[in-house]
């Protein structure tokens, strides 16, 4: 339990330290309007940059979430693997095989490219 407190403290305090550095306002003025224009190599931006950004790897992310669940099952398997031995290897082998079919199918459908 004390390890968790230590971890939480380290995370929060070091983060807070950097937050302090990042927001200390130093320098003459907060920035005039022409200073705040985003940098596009000298051009005037026509619209806000925030947009419904058309990312091209969305099928990959969805397949990733499903594949991520496998990690959740693999961690406990790794702990008892040495103890159980070959049977565990066979079971996890089958589990991995099942999910590799999914990845192979995704690769064949071309989802690991920019759509």
């Amino acid at each position, binding site marked *: 339990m004390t390890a968790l407190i230590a971890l939480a403290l380290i995370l929060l305090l070091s983060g807070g330290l950097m937050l302090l550095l990042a927001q200390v306002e130093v320098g003459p003025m907060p920035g005039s309007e022409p*200073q705040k224009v985003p940098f596009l*190599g*000298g051009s005037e931006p*026509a619209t806000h940059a925030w*947009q*419904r950004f058309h990312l091209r790897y969305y099928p990959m992310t969805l397949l990733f979430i499903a594949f991520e669940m496998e990690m959740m099952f693999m961690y406990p398997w790794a702990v008892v693997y040495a103890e159980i031995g070959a049977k565990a290897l066979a079971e996890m082998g089958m589990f991995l095989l099942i999910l590799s079919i999914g990845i192979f199918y995704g690769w064949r459908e071309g989802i690991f490219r920019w759509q």
Partner: protein
Amino acid sequence: MAVSEAIPRGHRQVRYFAAIGEDALAWVEGLARDAGLRRVPTPRAASLLLIAGRLPERSWPALRRVHDQMPHPRAVLHWGEGAQPVPDAVALAPAATPAVAMRALQGDLDRGARGSSPDLLPNEPPAPWLGKGPHGQGGEGMMGGTPYGRPMTMRGDELRDGLRLDAHAVTLGPFAPMLPPGLALDLRLQGDVIQRVEVMQPPFRDAMVEAPFAAAIDRPMSAAGLERARAVHHLRCLGRFCALRGAAAPAARAYASAYRATIGGRVDLGSLRRWLWLSGLRPGIAPGLGTLSAAQRGCLSGPALRAAGVPDDLRTRLEPYTGVGFAPIARQAGDVRARIDQWLAEAAQALDLAARLEGLPPTTFAEGLEGPAGALGAPAGGDRGDRPALDLDALLRGLEWGQAVSVLASFSPDALRRMLGAAG
């Protein structure tokens, strides 16, 4: 190793943003050898704005925006001749080396001896928004109005995967560090895939590249010197390409080899070849990327044309080269990979030719010769006027941003300017 001075005591690194004008790309890249000057990719990280060479009038508004985007305290140094785009810039003759002036400027800024250069543009928001609209942020409803001064992106057509999402219209300016100097593109993007490209301004003219070759037409020049200049040009283009792809060490090697070639030293391209192979530059590029369609191939010239399978080189018909048994190198693919290999191969060939042509007396090439980016003043090669202009939209449409930047960087800036049909 390239010769360069260490940072003199008491001075910290000067961070400058280079706004490269006409005939100045080689100068600015030469500055990189000085350990005390660091060229930064955005004005946000810079304290000095270095205006190199002559800036045409049409690019002054863009320069004012870049100047105002720099944080205070800032200063401007105009290194070159031509009119002064920024009123209180420190002028510096083209022949002088800017390192000393930049360190002095930075020292004055640090000590406060020099005031920060004021904004050039008026201090108003792009569109009046404060207090407008039901909630005072200048917007109406969900997507309307100009919240915080700018409208929001609207949906548009999509080329590749049928999801009609936001078509972001953006212009990337003449001083974008990842594009050739002066090139301004009006892009329509869906995500990072280009839907439509329009050239707003072609790249700036770079006469420095062809100065020795143009001079050889009317007065005698040593052929070996010309070949060394060609090698320097190819190695610089290669260095620029490697830098954009994030391979800093091979890029530095290429620039160092180019520098040694300019001062006539011995250049070992074998080590550069090994660095390039080790860096995995070639396998990282998709094969067939940036291949021009058959109709478009007419606008190619020089190494790009030879990389596309047409071994057309004026040197095969000119006297000093035929004597030493010159044979043009050609590749078939005509994509980005072929053009890079062509640069490296032709640089090696040019250096080898320079060694062989060392002893010959200077000759004039009255009827034209092969410049680094194509034939110069050549009646035999057909005049250059009838080449079709490059349709950049057809070349870059549907590419993701990283690939588009690589395709543009696979042509030399001056060749790209000529291909886009820009006069002057």
